């Protein structure tokens, strides 16, 4: 945001603006930018997901819309969704039904505020950055419960209950897995976390010590569960729950859930990148000419990894999901914290 304010100050017509005016304009520009990126990633990733799924299942995926490998398929789908009839079930709780998709979208959009795109380029340079991201994305759970309840449909309610249980549980290993990194950096600020990883791939936190390596994979597994994607897509299991908490939603309101899902997918991938995979630093030191591009490319590679897992592994059962979280991942992440701390003390990094 600092860079943006400086940029605005240089533009004709903005020079004479007061600090507060500049702040508000900068915030508005940043919010528009974030929302555009979010909407774009939903469009790009739906196409990418179909192509990846096709590739993994030895078929083509969309090929016709827009000539080149069906690139316009996602755009066409979005237009179709916008034109659909907006249905609110007669027995639904109208207010909550309308409001729920907005809460879900708000939760994931709010979390984007603290993502460090490039040196000095972050919408809000918060001291509690990482912590803020986790807090904001925890609001998504409330939105999902609202949607499930307001639909007045037992499948939707089951889906919401599963989604809430899963997301509340996996939030714990997700946050715990990042604690070793926070101990190394000594700050929760997202910019500081990336700056601490300067100087080539061996300085990235994933390769700093063996416990951090394990913590990264724990984070990765938890992030799949947190975004409700396969093999942990229990809230949406088609064979059991129709479509889960968004069964009754159509048109634009469904599009909000859709948008939030892909925005969340990209968000958890970006968190993985800036916490463990060096953020905007390139793997080879000295090649950092396009920090934001490096950051986004790494994020897209993480999204690809996520899709790869989704289309390769079969779905787990609900009890297996809970067993994995509480009896495997939480103890392992706690062990990572202790182990990384011991290594830090023995190597003399802290007194």
């Amino acid at each position: 945001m600092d860079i943006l304010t400086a940029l605005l100050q240089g533009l004709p017509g903005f020079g004479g603006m007061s600090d507060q005016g500049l702040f508000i304009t900068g915030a508005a520009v940043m919010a528009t930018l974030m929302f555009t990126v979010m909407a774009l990633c939903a469009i790009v990733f739906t196409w990418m997901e179909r192509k990846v799924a096709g590739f993994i299942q030895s078929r083509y995926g969309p090929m016709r819309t827009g000539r080149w490998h069906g690139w316009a398929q996602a755009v066409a789908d979005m237009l179709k969704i916008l034109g659909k009839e907006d249905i609110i079930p007669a027995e639904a709780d109208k207010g909550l039904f309308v409001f729920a998709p907005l809460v879900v979208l708000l939760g994931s959009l709010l979390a984007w505020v603290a993502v460090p795109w490039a040196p000095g380029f972050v919408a809000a340079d918060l001291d509690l950055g990482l912590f803020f991201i986790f807090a904001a994305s925890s609001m998504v759970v409330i939105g999902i419960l609202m949607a499930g309840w307001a639909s007045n449909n037992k499948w939707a309610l089951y889906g919401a209950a599963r989604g809430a249980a899963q997301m509340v549980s996996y939030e714990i290993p997700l946050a715990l897995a990042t604690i070793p990194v926070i101990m190394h950096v000594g700050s929760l600020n997202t910019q500081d976390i990336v700056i601490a990883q300067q100087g080539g791939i061996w300085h990235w936190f994933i390769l700093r010590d063996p416990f951090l390596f394990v913590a990264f994979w724990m984070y990765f597994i938890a992030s799949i569960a947190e975004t409700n994607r396969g093999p942990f897509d229990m809230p949406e299991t088609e064979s059991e729950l129709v479509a889960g908490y968004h069964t009754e939603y159509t048109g634009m309101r469904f599009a909000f859930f859709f948008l939030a899902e892909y925005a969340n997918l990209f968000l958890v991938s970006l968190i993985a990148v800036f916490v463990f995979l060096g953020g905007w630093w390139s793997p080879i030191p000295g090649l950092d000419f396009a920090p934001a591009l490096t950051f986004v490319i790494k994020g897209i590679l993480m999204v690809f990894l996520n899709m790869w897992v989704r289309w390769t592994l079969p779905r787990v059962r609900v009890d297996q999901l809970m067993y994995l979280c509480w009896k495997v991942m939480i103890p392992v992440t706690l062990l990572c914290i202790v182990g990384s701390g011991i290594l830090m003390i023995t190597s003399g990094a802290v007194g």
Partner: protein
Amino acid sequence: MEGLLFWFCGSLLLLGGVMMVVQRSAVVSALWLVFAFLSAAGIFAVLGGTFLAVMQVLVYAGAIMVLFLFVIMMLQGPVMDGERRLMHPALWPLIAAPPAAVLIMLAGFLRGDRMVGFAGAPAPGFGSVVQVATLLLGRYLLAFELISIILLVALIGALAVGRGERKLPWK
């Protein structure tokens, strides 16, 4: 600017509190409570307690209220009916008397120059993670650890009550 935000969040908090009490549906009322918690987080943030604000959202709005909603959704029917029967209109003044008395006492206490409203943001660094962590893991370490034992006891107690004594895993 801060003063304006303080009063804005304060009025939202009041709105959330009132709406929570007057709702007929327990689920909607719980969601208004979430709204009130978020406004309270806003007040903390304005007052410089960003850590407290984020904690408020993460723990209260994001985790505890989710459990509340869970329980309410599961128990909706029977509990609500029981409550209706209990709440005979003749009992309302009796129930409203104690909170009203407290409110009047509070108003009396805050009258005059004690009622300052927004007194400006505190010094930078106040309520930061470092400060909270130093206090929690330094001066109040014992109390902090004892609380976790109390929570563990409560957890085991809930397990014992919920499953019946004979079905406990260690029996």
